[in-house]
């Protein structure tokens, strides 16, 4: 009798243990699956597919081509020379004027020769909601839209593109751009002067619709 009771209790205990193990296993399996799915999603967000990379590369070539535009090169070069001796204090003063658009300071950069070249490029190549050019000091030369700052050389993207005067074309990740109001990829291209020196940097914000259109 006692043996029977003990054997029944052992059976019950085993059944409970098996049930607990199966439940636990299922729970961990589901968690592992969820974690794997989350990893796949994060990978999708972080990495650009080869097709997208190809399109971005093509667009980067377009901007590199724009960087050879005579008007842009000459205007950027002349402003670089003009601003070469500006002190930090003077630059800060100009940045403040930019914020307040004192004396239509900003408007001049939206309607100058470089700005019109950029606008024309924009019309011919849809998908670039914002393009602007800086000189070798990081100060704006011309632009399609009003940028938040006049001075860009304190930005990492500018430092990387300028590359200590060597110049480097590259693109950023897909991220939300306030001025473009959409998910975009920023393209950075140095403007090389006739002497082979970097005289400025072009930043072009490319809407992902522009990429999608090409795919």
């Amino acid at each position, binding site marked *: 009798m006692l043996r029977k009771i003990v054997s029944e209790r052992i059976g019950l205990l085993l059944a409970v243990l098996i049930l607990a193990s199966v439940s636990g296993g299922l729970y961990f399996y589901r968690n592992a699956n969820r974690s794997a799915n989350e990893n796949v*999603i994060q990978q*999708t*967000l972080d990495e*650009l*597919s*080869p*097709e*997208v990379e190809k*399109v971005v590369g093509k667009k980067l070539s377009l901007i590199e081509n724009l960087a050879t535009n005579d008007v842009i090169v000459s205007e950027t070069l002349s402003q670089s020379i003009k601003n070469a001796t500006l002190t930090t204090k003077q630059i800060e003063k100009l940045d403040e004027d930019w914020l307040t658009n004192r004396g239509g300071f900003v408007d001049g950069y939206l*309607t100058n020769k470089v700005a*019109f070249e950029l*606008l*024309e490029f*924009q*019309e011919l190549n*849809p998908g670039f*909601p914002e393009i602007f050019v800086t000189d070798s000091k990081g100060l704006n030369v011309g632009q399609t*839209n009003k940028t938040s700052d006049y001075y860009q050389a304190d930005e990492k993207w500018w430092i990387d593109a300028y590359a200590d005067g060597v110049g480097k074309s590259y693109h950023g990740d*897909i991220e939300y751009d306030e001025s*473009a*109001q*959409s*998910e975009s990829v920023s393209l950075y291209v140095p403007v090389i002067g006739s002497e082979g020196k970097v005289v400025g940097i072009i930043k072009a914000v490319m*809407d*992902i*619709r522009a*990429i*999608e259109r090409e*795919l």
Partner: protein
Amino acid sequence: MKKLRSIQTELTLIFLGLVGFLLILGVIFLYNLSIVSKNFEDHIENQMPTSLATQQVLVALEGVTGELSAAFRAEDITDIQIIRDSEANFNKNVLNFEMFAQAVIEGSDSENFKRLDGGIIYREWILHGFNNIYKIHKSDEANARLMVEVDALFDKLVAKSERAFQLKKSILRLHEQGETHEEQHAELDEVLSAIKNIKTEMGGKITQMVEFNTQTSEDQHQHVSGIIMKVELITYTSLILSMIFAIMLGYFVAEKLLIIPITKLQKGSREIASGNFNYEVSVENHDELGTLAKGFNQMASQLKARDIKIRELTSTLKVLNKLLRHDLLNDLTIIQGNLEMFQDMKDKLQVETFIGDSQSAVARGMEFIKKMRDLENSVLAGGELKPVDVSKVISTVIENYPKMKITTTGAASVVADEAITSVFDNIIGNVQMHSGSDVVNIEVNVSGKFVNIKIADEGKGIPDDVKVKLFTEGFKYGETGHSGLGLYIVRMTVERYGGSITVTDNTPKGAVFIVRLPKAD
């Protein structure tokens, strides 16, 4: 031996059966419920997300056309930033349209959807968190075909719209530069007119899609309603059937297991109480009540045996009483008469005669009382029988008869008790008193399951008419006949042991008493 099935086991089996029945009903119910749930799930997972996706497509299209209207509603828009903002919103809506349209066509979890446009569409899908909200399955052929047609028209609309934005920005730039832009204006008008036509065509297709979805939803609703009605019917029928089944089962089980046997036992107890010990309770149950009925019948049988015993005792007591009144009174009367005459008689010879007669009467009285004790022992001894060495008992009895020449051969054990001593004592006493011989040969033989003890004398023998009455109550034979109880007691005792006693003639003379007793194992 048939295994006893207790009422507990039977009831457990019945409840298990009932549970099994309910389980079957439950399975049927769950099966139908699963069909409803599957349909509902299908509706939630397929139809509803598709409808919501179609709704999102419509919202996006509305956004696209809204932005176009905002950007081109008036000629006087000269601020290029307004056009850019409209274009940005336009692009967002185009992406939303593409996401939901492709999700309906391909399914939001499909690899095609994930790879679409280099993963750009799926990336947007995740960024907006739609992967957590919508699980859009690949739409059925008709719906997908309609969506493909709408998407193709939408592509045309987007292409024309992009050209319109391009032209508008060009016009504004040329205007800013003070250059002519008539050509661009003319083209813009053409493009806007084409957009209008595409919108009209899309409206028709979208109406078809909405109608298709509405019809599908209605069909689904009717289908689910039908199944729910079926499930309700099955549920109610099952409940009613279960109740009827439970009531009937409870009634018949209680009737068979409890009511019928208990009623039979009740009747049996009434019969026994009224003295009918022959009444037998017939309960066929193989459970506790069946066992109780068997016990009840055994009890009735024992009561019957005791009743018989009581009747026998009563009868014996009647005999004793009769004998006491008759024989002892006779002897006491003799003694009383002798004592009276003794007072008057002076003759010595006569006195001695009266004293001798009185002594004989006292001896008979004492003998009679001894026989009464033997008879009481024989009748009342109801104790357990046991193996008794019959030769030892005979040896003990022989010591009471020193003047007799008694020989004994053979030995065996029989089933008996202490009263067996009186059996042999009475027989040998009778031989001594009535046979006229002092020679007795006792022979003990085993015959199968019995032991035969032959007690033979070489006396005058017993007449045949006497032989048949010899063992009856109160039968007296010859002048020396005493109470007539000795051999009657012998017969009763031997029969109580399950044996018998007979008497035959001995060869060449005399009589032989044959006592047959069960052999002890």
